């Protein structure tokens, strides 16, 4: 299948170098009007949900040529900071600064304006929302700056959470895969929760990185997670103690100052996404670059040139053939750099050839 119509022979040569090519990336038409906070691909189809600070959640459908068309959208009370699909890819949940989470059912509201149902409520901005399945039922989990993580059953409209977990600090990031839920909070705390026992915190650790946690992302096989910090560093952390020997961290998203040789500019790691098939992963940062890595070989598979602005969110589609990244201002340089000229766009990068494949023969070190 040649998604995006890319011929495989022509691209083969380009993929032999470590520097990747973004010239074939397709830009999504009608992007959000403000910074993009999250991207999420449906597991059922090539539907990309995009949440934005402009209070809207947009859903784009991507065809085989990589062209995205706006399919639907819904609006929330305030900036939307996170969105997530249910496991079967039919429901979409989004949450944000209006302290609530809304869920839409795409099957039920085909072809009509989406009407969200409120499924969660917090005391402060909900930074992250994810969906998971408990005993075969879709459940919503929200993490908020009010220092709690709450579980919600969407069928329950009473407004009471199915469970609350007190977090050490404001929730900054969350990710889930299978039965693993990882919550990253301010002050570098990380909580690991086994979702088969959602009420218990399996483990609370401080981040292996010395600086503020920006993002956590679970491995494809759910045996661990990656942590990204504001100090251009990414850590690979396994959940079980027997695997601690495999933990490591590495530097990324740093630039040498053009004028001074010994000055390194260090950017924050904004997004980490694991490839659903190969188990490799991407990091993207405020420096506007993204890279593919192989954690087992401890190798960078591919680096890509700067895309014109900070990358705030990334996502692989369900079969790992599309890598979507959102370029928009992430506030990393403060107030002064938030100009109207700053690009706000979503790009779709076709994952061709071996870009995300772990290196053959590279043994585990």
């Amino acid at each position, binding site marked *: 299948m040649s998604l995006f119509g890319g011929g495989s022979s022509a691209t083969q040569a380009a993929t032999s*170098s470590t520097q990747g090519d973004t010239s074939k990336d397709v830009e999504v038409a009608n992007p959000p009007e403000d910074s993009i906070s999250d991207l999420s691909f449906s597991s059922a189809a090539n539907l990309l949900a995009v949440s934005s600070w402009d209070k809207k959640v947009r859903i784009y459908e991507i065809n085989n040529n990589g062209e995205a068309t706006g399919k639907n959208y819904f609006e929330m009370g305030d900036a939307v900071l996170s969105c997530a699909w249910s496991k079967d890819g039919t429901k979409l949940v989004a949450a944000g600064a209006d302290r609530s989470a809304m869920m839409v059912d795409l099957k039920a509201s085909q072809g009509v304006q989406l009407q969200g149902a409120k499924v969660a409520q917090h005391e402060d901005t909900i930074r992250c929302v994810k969906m998971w399945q408990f005993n075969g039922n879709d459940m919503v989990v929200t993490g908020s700056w009010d220092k709690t993580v709450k579980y919600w059953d969407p069928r329950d409209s009473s407004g009471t959470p199915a469970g609350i977990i007190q977090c050490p600090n404001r929730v900054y990031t969350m990710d889930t895969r299978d039965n693993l839920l990882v919550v990253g909070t301010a002050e570098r705390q990380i909580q690991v929760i086994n979702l088969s026992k959602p009420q218990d915190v399996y483990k609370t650790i401080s981040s292996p990185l010395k600086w*503020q946690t920006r993002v956590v992302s679970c491995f494809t096989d759910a045996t661990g997670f990656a942590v990204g910090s504001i100090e251009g560093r990414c850590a690979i952390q396994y959940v079980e103690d027997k695997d601690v020997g495999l*933990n*490591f961290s590495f530097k990324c998203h740093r630039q040498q100052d053009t004028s001074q040789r010994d000055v390194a500019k*260090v950017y924050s790691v904004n997004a980490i996404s694991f490839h659903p098939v190969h188990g490799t992963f991407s990091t993207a940062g405020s420096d506007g670059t993204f890279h593919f890595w192989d954690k087992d070989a401890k*190798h960078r598979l591919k680096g890509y040139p700067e895309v014109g602005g900070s990358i705030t969110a990334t996502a692989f589609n369900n079969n790992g053939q599309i890598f979507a990244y959102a370029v928009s201002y992430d506030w990393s340089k403060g107030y002064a750099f938030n100009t109207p000229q700053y690009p706000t766009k979503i790009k779709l990068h076709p994952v061709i050839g071996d870009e995300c494949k772990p290196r053959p023969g590279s043994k585990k070190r």
Partner: protein
Amino acid sequence: MGKKKRTHPDLQDKLDRPWCFYCERDFDDLKILISHQKAKHFKCERCGRRLNTAGGLQVHMNQVHKETLTVVENALPHRHGLEIEIFGMEGIPDEVVAQHNQRVTQQHFADLHERSIATGNPIAGYGGFGGGAGGSGHKKPKLESKEDLKKRLAEHKARKAAEKEGGATSSGNATPLDGTPGVVQSPGGGFQSVGSPSFGGAHISPPPAYGHPYGQSAYSQAPQHPYQPQPAPLLHGTTYYSPPVTHATASPQYQNPYQGYSMTSPPPLQYRGGAYHPPPHSMSTASSDMHQPPNTLPPPAGLPQRPSFAPDVNAEQSPVATSIHEPAQNEDPAAETTPAAEKAVPTKKKYKKDPAFIRLVYTDNEMSPEEKMAKLARYAFVPDHAKETVLGVSNSAVTGAVNSILAAEPTADMVDNTIDDAGLSTSLNEASGKTVPEPIEEVPTTMADEAMNDTGTVTADTLVDKNAIATAEKTRDETMEE
């Protein structure tokens, strides 16, 4: 040689390091430089083949891929030309070498300065130079004149010792009269023995008894023997002390070997940077020759270092020290006692790995950028309660104003940061260093986005040369797979 490596390379070491013409990086070893060049600059991007020179790559590209190579990859803008044939350190034009040396020299002194600032605080109590930038002015000269420091220390010790001895100063021949082996050590220490004036003098008055006294003082004395033949270059112009016991106790039968020794191969005497390095080999030969007859002694291999360090004088003075000269003991802190200025600075490895300055683009460790954004007026959330509407609006306006001030902070922080850079980089070093006990293992280089191929270089820091080369080769294999 002294076991302890200096934590910071001196200027000459830095200038001697092989470096890459194309990217100005420097390397531990010429081999690593060459493999770096092959991997970074002379690698064919089409097929991954690594050529030896830019010219070779040009020909390869031309013949194999029918392409013309115009620039060397990954090179500095003004160095990417193909016209100069570079291989390792060969072929670099003289003026470029001069330029490089100048840059290294400048960098070296800048580093010294910066280090004195960075380390000024922790050792504020030392010698009274205050912490902070103010201290640096005092400290820099100290760092530079290690030799002087040591010389003065030695002078001082010698003077003190001489006083203790009752005025036996500045004369090599005055001291031989002095008594017991243990005491004799004290004035000279190992250090002064460098300047022991004459071997001939020793012959003149050889006391008959060798065995017993020698056995007692053997360790401390033994290393000195090989040096006595030295014609005493007036290195310091301070005290000359010919270890009397050595001569006094040397029985006639042992003098001959010495004499022969001194004539055939006087050990190369090195006096550099205050550390006096006795040649281990000649030393051990000499000492084993002499020691075996009288009684059994600990392995002579450990002997050489001990007397060599000026600051060890104290250790040498105590009789205890003379009796426990085992290799392990030689490693003890006393042996490593170097002027505090040198000691307090961070290790070279860290300093090498991380750039001197690290500037975080987003500096607020306490608050996420999203939180700052969310506090902006235009994102301020107004709870949807009819009653509170008015309140809410005014609220948000206030928050907005406050937050635009807050929002301006990061930029201010960044300015602060440039000033604080030294401190920051230190803390970052700590963060990435191994001193912090944590399960995670840092692998900055293997995955560092700048160069996968440079694994060898950094690993080389911790491994023996051979291993480093092996690693380099391994890396080469991996790059081939690309």
